[in-house]
């Protein structure tokens, strides 16, 4: 039981990070109907910016960890959002009314550009940071000697994820911007006729997705302690899978899909073999898609006439 609880914690934290990235995929798909393959690399950029701003703050002599974390979070969200906006502006907007595959190919190209850019700018080596948040809590120590441990980093990752998720869900459900986004999702032409600035709304979607990816990048840096220029690829694939599993286009679905992938990987590694954890995750994806083609929380696509 204790062992199961520990593995549940492990899976939940991993799933939170996947979920944060998956939201970026799902939001963009919901509005413009394309898979933003560069999103994994935006996540990587977010990790690098978090690392750089962290090092800058430390070199200024700041030592208060909570303050550092808050500043790093805001700075990396802001700068990564700028990247998201720029990518949309130069790589997707000119192609919006082109044939369907064009923006997707452009996204793949953008993914190359971003990862090579950070390789040239930051070097090819992995960039480690010493543990920033240390310590943890012993939740339960059983007589058998197994100790359930919850580290402070894990607490920070989960709390940050939940809080930011709540803020952005509120943003989409309750604000003017959120209403515009939902309108564009349903029918861009109609939304434009009713006075919604479609270009601006789509830009804002990319900005929000990139900001959440930056949060994921920072959590990744805190949790695993390193970033490198090629980490966006694998993380992007996993998060994309999570978005599809949860039902692409659905915000809670992306989070649920992320948690599901994280838990499946961890529990499979815990009770079966570590070797086949990815096989397990993708097999379950296939099974789910056979029975629920739109994913766990996805709505069936209505044919637009």
């Amino acid at each position, binding site marked *: 039981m204790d*062992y199961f609880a*520990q*593995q549940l914690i*492990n*899976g939940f*934290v*991993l799933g939170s990070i996947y979920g944060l990235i998956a939201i970026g995929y799902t939001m963009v798909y919901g509005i413009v109907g394309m898979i933003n393959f560069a999103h994994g690399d935006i996540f990587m950029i977010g990790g690098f910016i978090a690392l750089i701003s962290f090092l800058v703050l430390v070199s200024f002599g700041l030592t208060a960890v909570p303050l550092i974390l808050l500043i790093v979070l805001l700075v990396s969200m802001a700068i990564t959002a700028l990247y998201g906006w720029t990518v949309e502006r130069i790589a997707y907007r000119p192609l919006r009314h082109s044939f369907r595959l064009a923006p997707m190919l452009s996204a793949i190209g953008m*993914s*190359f550009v971003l*990862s*090579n850019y950070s*390789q040239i700018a930051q070097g*090819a*080596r*992995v960039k*480690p940071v*010493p*543990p920033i948040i240390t310590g*943890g809590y*012993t939740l339960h120590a059983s007589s058998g*000697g*197994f*100790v359930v*441990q919850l*580290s402070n*980093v894990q607490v920070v990752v989960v709390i940050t994820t939940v809080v930011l998720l709540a803020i952005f869900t509120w943003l989409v459900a309750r604000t003017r911007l959120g209403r515009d986004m939902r309108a564009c999702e349903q029918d861009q032409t109609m939304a434009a006729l009713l006075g919604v600035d479609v270009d601006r709304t789509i830009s804002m979607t990319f900005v929000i997705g990139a900001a959440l990816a930056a949060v994921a990048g920072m959590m*990744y840096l805190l949790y*695993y*302690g*390193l970033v*490198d*220029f*090629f*980490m966006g*690829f*694998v993380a992007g694939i996993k998060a994309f899978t999570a978005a599809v599993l949860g039902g692409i286009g659905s915000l809670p679905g992306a989070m649920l899909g992320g948690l599901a992938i994280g838990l499946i*990987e*961890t*529990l499979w*590694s*815990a009770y079966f*073999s*570590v*070797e086949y*954890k*990815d096989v397990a995750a993708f097999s379950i994806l296939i099974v789910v898609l056979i029975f629920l083609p739109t994913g766990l929380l996805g709505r069936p696509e209505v044919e637009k006439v």
Partner: protein
Amino acid sequence: MKSFKLIGLALGASFALSASAFAQDITVAVAGPMTGGESAFGRQMKNGAEMAVADLNAGGGLLGKKLALDVEDDACDPKQARSVAEKIGSAKIPFVAGHYCSSSSIPASEAYADGNVLQITPASTNPLFTERKLWNVARVCGRDDQQGLVAAEFIAKYYKGKNVAILNDKTTYGKGLADETKKALNKVGFTEKMFESYNKGDKDFNAIVSRLKRDNIDLVYVGGYHQESGLILRQMRDQGLQTVLMAGDALADKEFASITGPAGAGTLFTFGPDPRNKPTAKAIVERFKAKNIDPEGYTLYTYAAMQVWSQAVKKAGTTDPKKVMDTIKGGGAWDTVIGKIEIDAKGDIKQIDYVVYKWDDKGGYTEINPKGS
């Protein structure tokens, strides 16, 4: 992955230019992971090769010609290693010092054999590299069946009756080393409690760490590279697990300590006796230090690979790879920075001595004496 191909293309283009510009020189190559997770070791190799070429040119070159160095990146990817090898072969480069990952060196060696290139690896320890009876391969480092034996002896002696787990990353190097260690352990009647593999490139090892915790593992032996080993260690400490981690020669770079932080203290690994401490290396180590480079890990091994080749070329009076290889294998002991090296008919070195090292909390590692301490 995808980005590496582009880089390869760009390197290829620049290389074609440089090869024609220095047609009068002898071009030699160093190939290793210049990008990616293992790039710390690629950089070691590049540093060693650059210094060796500079020193040879300062001493008047080879056979009256200057040497030029071509640096190639395989990103520790077997496919890319193969295409690098084909490129080097078609450029008529007679000698390559490389690669780092065994999974790169082995497929590349066949392309080198076809392309008439002599290959000396400074770092690939998988036995298969020299076991396939290729005419063109040799190494200046030890083999994993020897490395695994030393690790197993250490474990059997100091962890007798304790729980030991063996992990590997499914690569040629990692799996090979883990298998050799397991074999040597089982031979002395020591059975590991857990044998698992993970994927190279994984970042999250919390599930494995919890398993180690459940099984009360006292020592985990990792057949894998330094990045994953560092992450496993860090996640063990995060989960409150004080298990000792032991690994192979892939931990011989300071980057390991920068991943783990002070938590890396106490980690063990096997490696040849530190070449930096050998009297033969003293002058060269000083010159590296003057350039602000710590010639750790495989830096001096790469330098030594270049020395073996250049001395054999001088002796044979030609750069023809087949003649040079005959000279290397039949030529007795070669004087190198890492001491005298004698290479047998297979291409392995005759004198091998792995020792166990321990990381300290200051980010350095020192040899420990299993008999004394």
